[in-house]
């Protein structure tokens, strides 16, 4: 009888331990997910990739990675189970159906490993493919009042998001170049205007329109929103010595040292197109300094627009070097340093 009671105690203790042990005692997984492009056409190949790591950034191999891709109305389009490689990376490739509808698709991922707390993440992409060229009909050639030119405010600091400061009027000059490219009268307003912009997030309040913004995330609520949410293809970053333009997966596509910018004779700038969560077609252009932003406007108007059909990527990064030292931006001084989707 004593032996039986002892056995019962052992069984119960084992079961109890199984049921009540604290799952929070396990280390936390961290999973990321990216797409090889921000947008696709029906029939094109989509590659999802990412990494499974611990909180210190050490790769976690052989984790199970579950993927679900939903279409724009939220129905599952694709599912997959893979394992992370020895470097913590994983990938999955599938082809979009020819019948894939337009809109925003969402790829969800969950990473799980034995005696780890699971982790989730998501990435979005849109259909159809959007490029600088494809923006032509939705921006510069759009019907009247379909496009919103949103200027970075040089006042009303109280309506700027934390981390966003007042703009320089030079950003407005660059915007004027782009507005002048439009065939029709379009809307405009400030990034501090609550009628156009949700001032708690920086998101435009309208949908299914087009947005043109110039100026970086440091001065523009809307650019801050798109970069902070990783909705834009590229985002600004910096350390003590260098400014960077990076892709959503953290890889650098352009950089310039801070010391190079001090005399305003060189800069890098970005031109990028994408679709936001409300179906707006967005064009962002900015340099690290005001001269780079102005150069973006000049280059788009004078070089890109005349041969727009050849600009079949979603984003481009350029560098300007004032080779003749006159302080002015000459188009021949601008070189493309990267592009992508």
């Amino acid at each position: 009888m004593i032996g039986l009671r002892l056995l019962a105690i052992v069984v119960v203790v084992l079961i109890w331990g199984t049921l009540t042990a604290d799952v929070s005692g396990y280390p936390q997984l961290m999973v990321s997910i990216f797409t090889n492009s921000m947008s696709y056409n029906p029939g094109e190949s989509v590659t999802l990739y990412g990494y499974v790591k611990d909180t210190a950034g050490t790769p976690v191999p052989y984790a199970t990675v579950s993927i679900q891709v939903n279409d724009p109305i939220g129905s599952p389009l694709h599912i997959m189970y893979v394992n992370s490689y020895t470097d913590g990376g994983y990938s999955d490739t599938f082809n979009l159906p020819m019948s894939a509808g337009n809109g925003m698709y969402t790829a969800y991922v969950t990473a799980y490993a034995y005696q780890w707390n699971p982790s989730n993440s998501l990435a979005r992409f849109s259909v159809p493919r959007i490029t600088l060229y494809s923006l032509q009909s939705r921006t510069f050639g759009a019907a009247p009042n379909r496009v919103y030119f949103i200027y970075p405010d040089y006042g009303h600091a109280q309506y700027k998001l934390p981390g966003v400061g007042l703009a320089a009027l030079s950003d407005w000059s660059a915007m004027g170049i782009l507005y002048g490219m439009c065939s029709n009268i379009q809307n405009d307003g400030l990034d501090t205007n609550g009628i156009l912009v949700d001032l708690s997030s920086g998101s435009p309040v309208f949908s299914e329109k087009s947005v043109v913004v110039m100026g970086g995330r440091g001065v523009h609520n809307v650019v801050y929103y798109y970069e902070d949410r990783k909705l834009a293809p590229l985002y600004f970053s910096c350390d003590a010595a260098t400014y960077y333009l990076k892709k959503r997966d953290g890889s650098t596509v352009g950089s310039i040292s801070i010391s190079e910018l001090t005399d305003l004779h060189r800069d890098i700038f970005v031109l990028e197109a994408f679709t936001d969560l409300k179906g707006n077609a967005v064009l962002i252009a900015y340099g690290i300094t005001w001269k780079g932003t102005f150069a973006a406007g000049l280059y788009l108007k004078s070089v890109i627009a005349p041969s727009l059909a050849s600009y079949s990527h979603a984003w481009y990064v350029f560098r300007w070097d004032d080779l003749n030292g006159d302080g002015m931006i000459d188009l021949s001084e601008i070189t493309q340093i990267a592009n992508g989707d």
Partner: protein
Amino acid sequence: MTRYRYMPFSSGSRFTALRVGLLSALLLGSLVWVSSLQVRCDPATATVSIQIVGVYTTNSTGHNMTTFKRGQTVIVWVTVRNLGSDLDLPPLGPITWVEVTDPRSAPFTVQFHIGVLPGGGRITRAGFNVRLDYGPGIVDIPTGTYRASGFVSDKMISQGGSFFAPQASATFEVSL
């Protein structure tokens, strides 16, 4: 292939009754036959042993078939063995899934079934009705080899769920 997953329960309150029962059993000096308990569990914190036994296709009368014509209906069956306890994960789990991809490796359809997976090594079948066209009157789906893959998850991946085991697959042909 079977993937055994173990994570302890983190929420004690739901198991108060179970604990009382176990304590009573201890006091009475009797053994508890655990596998007879219907344990409802949080999927992320449960002991789960799921094996996808296989995937196969039949026609709508249940005869095994691997060759179909455009416009026909194929039933894709996913068979799952649950070596653990009965698996019931309300409100939306467990989920048995099937994805059918066309000859271009594009998803043709993703369907899922939500329901209990009885444990104790029992096998559950889930059948999915796949009509081989794009919609009423449209029969221009590609011909060639289609692949049907079966999965089982605790809940929607979009809700933080994960698949229990690697998928199993079968192929079938679609002709004019």
